[in-house]
């Protein structure tokens, strides 16, 4: 379980994240929902130690973060863009003891990626798939995905969604941020809604759907008044 406990982060005079606490369970997909600029990416980066929080702490299964068990996938390339996918894989193999080459090969095939392609030549959707493949092949217990669907074509979205429901993702905890909720609504187990740096609502998606008969978008409308 990822536990985020009372984290805070300010930018100039504005409190970007104000006392946020939530949990994300293993084997579940937890979605951080919010409009643009509500601090979702900052939260993910904060969990990974890429933008340290001013206050608060993050525990993974009760312990400080172990980077062998948690993978982060950004919404853009995490390698120099003149690297080929092959080179990225070689780099991952060098530094991630848990990197699963067979799994990576399978993902490359599923996603129809070409290992000799340079990252700079990839379309946004292909790049997102390559990023995801590199992240999943780390074989992590928890996967943190920052806006994986933003600005990508519909077929790529489908491929990714398909992956989420496959056995590859079983038993992994996924924490995902997105503002395009429709595409993955039915995959999500838990939603955490953010507004102005605060959690405005945290709920079990099934409960809301079955008990209250509302979709996430309905809840979003309520909260954000859009």
């Amino acid at each position: 379980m990822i536990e985020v406990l009372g984290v805070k982060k300010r930018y100039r005079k504005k409190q970007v994240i104000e006392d946020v606490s939530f949990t994300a369970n293993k084997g579940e997909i937890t979605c951080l929902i919010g409009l643009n600029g509500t601090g979702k990416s900052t939260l993910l980066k904060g969990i990974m130690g890429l933008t340290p929080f001013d206050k608060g702490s993050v525990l993974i299964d009760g312990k400080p973060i172990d980077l062998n068990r948690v993978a982060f996938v950004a919404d853009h390339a995490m390698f120099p863009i003149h690297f080929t996918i092959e080179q990225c894989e070689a780099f991952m193999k060098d530094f991630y003891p848990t990197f699963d080459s067979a799994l990576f090969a399978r993902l490359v095939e599923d996603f129809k990626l070409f290992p000799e392609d340079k990252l700079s030549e990839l379309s946004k959707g292909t790049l997102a798939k390559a990023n995801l493949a590199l992240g999943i092949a780390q074989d992590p217990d928890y996967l943190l995905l920052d806006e994986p669907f933003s600005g990508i074509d519909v077929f790529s979205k489908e491929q990714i969604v398909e992956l989420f429901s496959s056995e590859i993702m079983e038993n992994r905890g996924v924490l995902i941020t997105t503002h395009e909720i429709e595409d993955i609504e039915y995959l999500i187990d838990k939603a955490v809604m953010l507004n102005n740096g605060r959690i405005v609502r945290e709920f079990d998606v099934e409960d809301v759907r079955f008990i209250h008969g509302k979709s996430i978008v309905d809840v979003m409308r309520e909260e954000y008044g859009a």
Partner: protein
Amino acid sequence: MNLLKLLSWEVERVTKPFLILVAGLLVVQFGYLGYFLWDETQLYEQLRRAGDADYQMSFANYLGGTAYLLSLGIAVAAMLLYSVWIWYRDFQGRGTFMLRLLTMPQKRMVIFFAKLATILMMTLGLFAIEWIALKLQYIAFTSWFDGKMIPMNGSFEQALSSNGILGMMYPDSIVNFVIHQLFIYIVVLFIFAFVLIERSFWQRTIWSPVLSLSILVVILTIPILGYAFLSNRLIYDETIMYVGVVLIVWAGVTIWLGRRFLQTKLNV
């Protein structure tokens, strides 16, 4: 082991620009040497015909030439620039490599030392290549003037030690060479510390470089001011010891700062 692996990635990334730099230096130096030999020979022949060719060629004259010194300047500038760029490029552009580097399951100081070792290898490489180039240039120099029966004076060593910059680059003693190298790495460490402090301000405004520069200027100037204060009280051997201690403190403080900011404060 991770350090060595990361070092090899860093070296691979710099291989092409490094080779371009080396090629540029050699072209400038040998090109200028050719021009120098031709020009001096012309001048000498003119004097010989006039009957007053009583001056002798010295390798030191070539080494003191603007083009030669400029080539060294370019190398220094390139290395300083690269010490900054080796960090900034990983924060810049569409592929933010720093995200990857910082989320790797390893101590973040491995990144620091891999980058430091890359710069170290590059500077040592440049020193090594330049030494061999100098030897070849000296051979070309002596054999050309020998062939033209034009008298020369001074040895290779003398020419080097009479040139301020080369005398420092290639001192007479190996121990001093190592100490001069340490000076270079301290400059690099200061640059590293600057970048890491600057990149740790989440709110990137004009003030972040100014502020991080100020921190380092303070660290740099305290021992220098201390020396101005102490210089009348310290005698020679104590001064040497003072400088030694200052170097160790500078290296220690910049590494400590780099570590602190890299591990707990860096913002990507």
